[in-house]
């Protein structure tokens, strides 16, 4: 049967050459899901018959010689906070259990137009709030490199599915690192596009000024291909930007001679595991060997970025999640009057982390604390942006570790929210500044994957992809895969 660890680009070529049919491809992934997802729990919803029917349709069109769109018959997994028409979209929450959106997110419309076949919906921390996928109401996803460890989060289902060959690629979402961090912990590529690059229409909102949808893939080329399909302005999202979308694969192979990469000493601080530090330093050496010029830059706001992020993100979350009230969709817990109905519905429907963030955000926005917390965080956010603006006057990219640690054990941090938040220390500044960031595998520490994060100028995903591709092609990491066997 077809090797499900092939890059999507290889699947596309094979389909064009008729080496395999779309149905064979989909069947290979469905078989792999059947064999392994009992252990991993990467998926919340898989509809094999729907996926097979779509694949057959593309095979029939190919047989008739019809012109085919770029991803015709290629399966994709989608994080379960992205609306899929008629297909359950739970956000990993009891409050939306059973809800079937009456419309597709814009990214889904674009994927379908490009011919992609929806393989299933992937697990996540409830409403994308978390760094381990343990906050899903439907149980945690496990890391394919070590089943006793978390895959990162919140796009942990997408990351685990791609890393273990349960999907060729997937969409995730990133508000404070939720694509890049699980990509790093699962040993794959994760790209958070510039804020405004990809439409958020149909993405269930968490932090509206921070959220972006992006690809999780086995290779940088695949990330470029998937971004190509989903990028671009959308009249249904007023924050999507009218910036032309370049051909992301065109310049991938041009190399990085003369490219200036900023290295921040703040990225070498406390809390960084020695094995992660060593892998990232070695990666910088590789980049220098490929002709990049490494320069020291300063990111003095890094010490404040996490506090700033958790104030801004929770404030926006408390407002966005006010709509789950038992009136229009999802769960309702009956009560004699309407306010009690809201309170009981939300108490029963939300998990602990979502409640904590709603409480934090409500607190930060409440009169008396608004100036001391929320407004202060918005001002600090300006300083985070200025750090990067200053850096990008000197360099073309900034390098940081993606995560300060490798994958941690399930249960290790669930009772210590602040420790869990520290997993995002190197990723949140990128969302605060609205910049594009990519995590690319850069080695192993204690047998677990480490990610290198590269950060680019607004809307310059092309340079980011070019540098990540050059690094990837010079190193063996992307060819490694976790050893997983079907349970006996």
């Amino acid at each position, binding site marked *: 049967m077809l090797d499900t660890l092939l890059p999507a680009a290889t699947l596309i070529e094979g389909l064009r050459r008729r080496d395999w049919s779309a149905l064979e491809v989909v069947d290979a992934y469905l078989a792999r899901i059947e064999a392994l997802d009992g252990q991993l729990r990467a998926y919340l919803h898989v509809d094999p018959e729907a996926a097979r029917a779509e694949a057959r349709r593309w095979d029939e069109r190919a047989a008739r010689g019809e012109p085919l769109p770029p991803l015709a018959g290629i399966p994709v997994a989608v994080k379960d906070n992205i609306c899929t028409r008629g297909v359950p979209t739970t956000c990993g929450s009891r409050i939306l259990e059973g809800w079937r959106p009456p419309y597709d997110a814009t990214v889904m419309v674009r994927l379908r137009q490009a011919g992609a076949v929806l393989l299933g919906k992937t697990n996540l921390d409830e409403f994308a709030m978390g760094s381990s996928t343990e906050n899903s109401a439907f149980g945690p996803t496990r890391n394919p490199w070590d089943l006793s460890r978390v895959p990162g989060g919140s796009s942990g289902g997408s990351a685990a599915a791609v890393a273990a060959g349960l999907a060729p690629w997937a969409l995730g979402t990133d508000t404070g690192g939720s694509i890049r961090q699980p990509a790093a912990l699962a040993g794959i590529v994760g790209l958070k596009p510039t804020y405004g690059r990809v439409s958020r229409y149909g993405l269930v909102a968490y932090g509206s000024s921070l959220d972006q949808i992006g690809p999780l893939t086995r290779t940088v080329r695949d990330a470029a291909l998937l971004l190509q399909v989903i990028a671009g302005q959308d009249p249904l999202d007023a924050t999507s930007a009218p910036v032309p979308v370049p051909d992301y694969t065109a310049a991938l192979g041009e190399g990085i001679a003369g490219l200036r990469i900023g290295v921040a000493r703040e990225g070498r601080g406390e809390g960084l595991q020695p094995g992660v530090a060593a892998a990232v330093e070695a990666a910088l050496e590789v980049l220098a060997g490929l002709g990049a010029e490494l320069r020291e830059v300063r990111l003095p706001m890094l010490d404040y970025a996490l506090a700033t992020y958790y104030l801004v993100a929770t*404030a*926006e979350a408390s407002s*966005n999640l006010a709509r789950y*009230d038992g009136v229009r969709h999802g769960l309702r817990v009956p009560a004699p009057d309407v306010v009690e109905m809201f309170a009981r519905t939300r108490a029963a429907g939300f998990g602990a982390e979502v*409640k904590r963030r*709603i409480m934090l955000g409500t607190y930060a926005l409440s009169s008396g604390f*608004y100036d001391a917390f929320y407004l202060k965080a918005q001002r600090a956010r300006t300083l985070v942006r200025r750090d990067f603006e200053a850096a990008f006057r000197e360099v073309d990219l900034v390098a940081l570790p993606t995560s300060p640690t490798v994958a941690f054990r399930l249960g290790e941090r669930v009772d210590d*929210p*602040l420790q869990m938040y520290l997993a995002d220390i190197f990723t949140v500044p990128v969302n605060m500044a609205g910049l594009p960031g990519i995590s690319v595998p850069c080695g192993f520490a204690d047998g677990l994957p480490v990610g290198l994060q590269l950060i680019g100028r607004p809307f310059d995903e092309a340079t980011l992809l070019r540098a990540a591709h050059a690094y990837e092609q010079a190193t063996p990491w992307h060819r490694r895969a976790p050893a997983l066997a079907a349970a006996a």
Partner: protein
Amino acid sequence: MAIDRATVDYVARLSRLALSEAEREAFTRQLREIVDYFARLQTLDLSAVPPTAHVHEGTNLFREDIPRPSLPRDEVLAAAPEVEEGFFVVPAVLEEAVHEPAPPPGLEGAVHEAAPPPGGAAGPDGSGEVADETAGPPPDRGGEGRAG
């Protein structure tokens, strides 16, 4: 100001969350620890720094104001817990005063409603598609138990 039980109860009421005893206990401890961590922002002099609500602020995007079909009403209503004659049905709405939480001691003078963050209410999850979608729990309408 440190978070205590009274603050947690007050914020829970504002948040429309009926917390259990165990949750009140845990959140008091956890939120105190997190808010203490946030206090590091107080060491920054930010008086001359303008706030950022949004990284693309200052650019207004317009599109043609052309009518287009909205979502089919039946499909939208089919997802609701209770409907009647094309309306969402909610339990009786009692007078507002009963539910307005009082701020805990030390917070007198605090306004009772949380202010929405700019942009925070604009999440494109279809919220504009249904006539009655708003960011907050729907304002109590008084009188009949219907919100349409």
